[in-house]
């Protein structure tokens, strides 16, 4: 299958940067330790903030570190390749191929995510398990499976948003300003800075309804067993709806870009 081939090749491409991976795992681990102590201090003051206990909070921190790169919260991934190819005009080559461009880039991004999960996801998680008693694995098979599904949906959601940002390069030639803004928004509304569940109302409700909640809050809540049974299905369904909307929008933007906008360079 073409898309599997694309995904494995992107996986392999990322796996050539061993140095960057090792450095990244180290950074994730350092931040994980710092955040864990900060959260423990916070939950010491308010032992049931957001419906979490101290152990939930520490686990949440490490899920966050594991997903930071996997979900590409900051940006990055194959959508950066796309923006660069739009800027240089190499997108012409993508455009005249007889395969859908979005599926192509999505497959690549899933390959990238798999690589980041196996390295920068699992690396810090192992460390967390060794260092922190409070760190817990999912309590049930349902939670574990739900988490995996939710994580795939998280990557696709993030891809869809990054795709829209990258496509801005068709008009602006350069995505970097928008990419930074989108990264900041994602950092805040994904729950990476602070869990969305401890936001004061009405921010909590608003943040939980936005697509960025998919990035971390939703998968983490499933891991922690906060969303079970029908509620788990509702969580996955919400992710699915946002994906449908965002990917649809992305397809529209691509179509209008290729009708109106111009491929650069001779």
């Amino acid at each position, binding site marked *: 299958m073409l898309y599997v081939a694309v995904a494995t090749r992107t996986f392999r491409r990322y796996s050539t940067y061993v140095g960057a991976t090792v450095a990244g795992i180290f950074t994730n681990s350092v931040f994980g330790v710092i955040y864990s102590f900060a959260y423990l201090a916070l939950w010491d003051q308010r032992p049931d903030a957001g419906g979490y206990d101290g152990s939930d909070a520490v686990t949440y921190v490490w899920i966050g570190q594991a997903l930071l790169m996997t979900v590409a919260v900051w940006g990055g991934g194959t959508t950066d390749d796309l923006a660069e190819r739009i800027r240089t005009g190499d997108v*012409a080559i993508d455009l*005249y191929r007889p*395969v859908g461009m979005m599926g192509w880039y999505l497959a690549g991004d899933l390959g990238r995510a798999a690589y980041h999960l196996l390295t920068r996801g699992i690396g810090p998680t192992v460390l967390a398990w060794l260092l922190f008693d409070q760190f817990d694995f999912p309590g049930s098979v349902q939670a574990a499976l739900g988490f995996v599904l939710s994580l795939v949906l998280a990557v696709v959601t993030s891809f869809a948003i990054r795709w829209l940002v990258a496509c801005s390069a068709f008009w602006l030639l350069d995505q970097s300003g928008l990419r930074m803004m989108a990264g900041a928004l994602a950092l805040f509304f994904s729950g990476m800075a602070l869990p969305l569940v401890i936001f004061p109302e009405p921010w909590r409700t608003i943040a939980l309804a936005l697509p960025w909640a998919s990035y971390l809050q939703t998968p983490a809540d499933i891991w922690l067993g906060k969303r079970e049974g029908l509620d788990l299905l509702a969580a996955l369904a919400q992710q699915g709806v946002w994906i449908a909307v965002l990917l649809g929008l992305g397809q529209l933007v691509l179509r209008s870009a290729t009708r*109106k906008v111009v491929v650069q360079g001779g």
Partner: protein
Amino acid sequence: MALIDATDLSRTFVVRRKDAGRRSLRRRREEVHAVHGVTFSVEPGEMVGYIGPNGAGKSTTIKMLTGILVPTGGRLTVAGVEPSRHRTELARRIGVVFGQRTTLWWDLPLRDSFELLQKIYAIEPARYRENLDAFVTLLELGDLLDTPVRQLSLGQRMRGDITAALLHDPEVLYLDEPTIGLDVVSKGRLREFLRTLNAERGTTLLLTTHDLQDIEALCDRVIVIDHGTLAYDGTLAGLHGRGGSMRTLVVDLVDEAPAISVPGASVRRVEGPRQWLSFPADASAAPVVAAVAASYAVADLSIQEPDIEDVIRELYSRS
């Protein structure tokens, strides 16, 4: 039926320029007519050179032919369909080589790029093997298959790109400056390959180039475009006549002499005993030579054929 049919084809770009001189943020809208009312058609099996000076509109035309750029005026059909509306469908039937870009994947070995292309174009495995073997032999790629593209030299990469464009048996191959940056030997080999391709598979070729030897070696037909408009469409031989081109008779006299005067030719340059006479390319050289030999003591004579570059330069400067 013509394979490519362009009628009054146009593409206008709108660019915004800052007003020069004035210190305002207002930008002036300006239209660039990159391609302007171009009409031509190409039959299956033809080899057509599409030439013109920098900025003439060659690459813009190729982009419209592949469907990645929408024309702003006129009609264009390739293999019976409008390229921009049937881009993906058409992609299976055309091949494109951009001299300045690669269609290969930078980090992947050549072999992997080819395998991805097999999947993209859904090339039947047996046909894929056959084509790959043929092109690898013809283009001498055997030793390079496991090299990542970023480690290939320009000429090696170009051979890889040409293979990549041909694996799915396209009916027509567009080449945008395929010989740019190649050395003389590589250029020669590439031309020979393209000639073989056209002869054996009947692949239609449309190529842009700034190297007129490409045209002389490959194309019976040339289309000259300048400032977006068609300046010439016809045979290479016809282009000589069109440009009012001249042949040159170089005469080495035994002694220095004033400018030679014979009917049907005029002296262009005198340097010591050597003189350059020009006469129309379509006239016979015999009477001129005879007249010179009859009146002067001649040590040596030679004839220079008109240079296609001069002809085209002439054509550009007139349009």
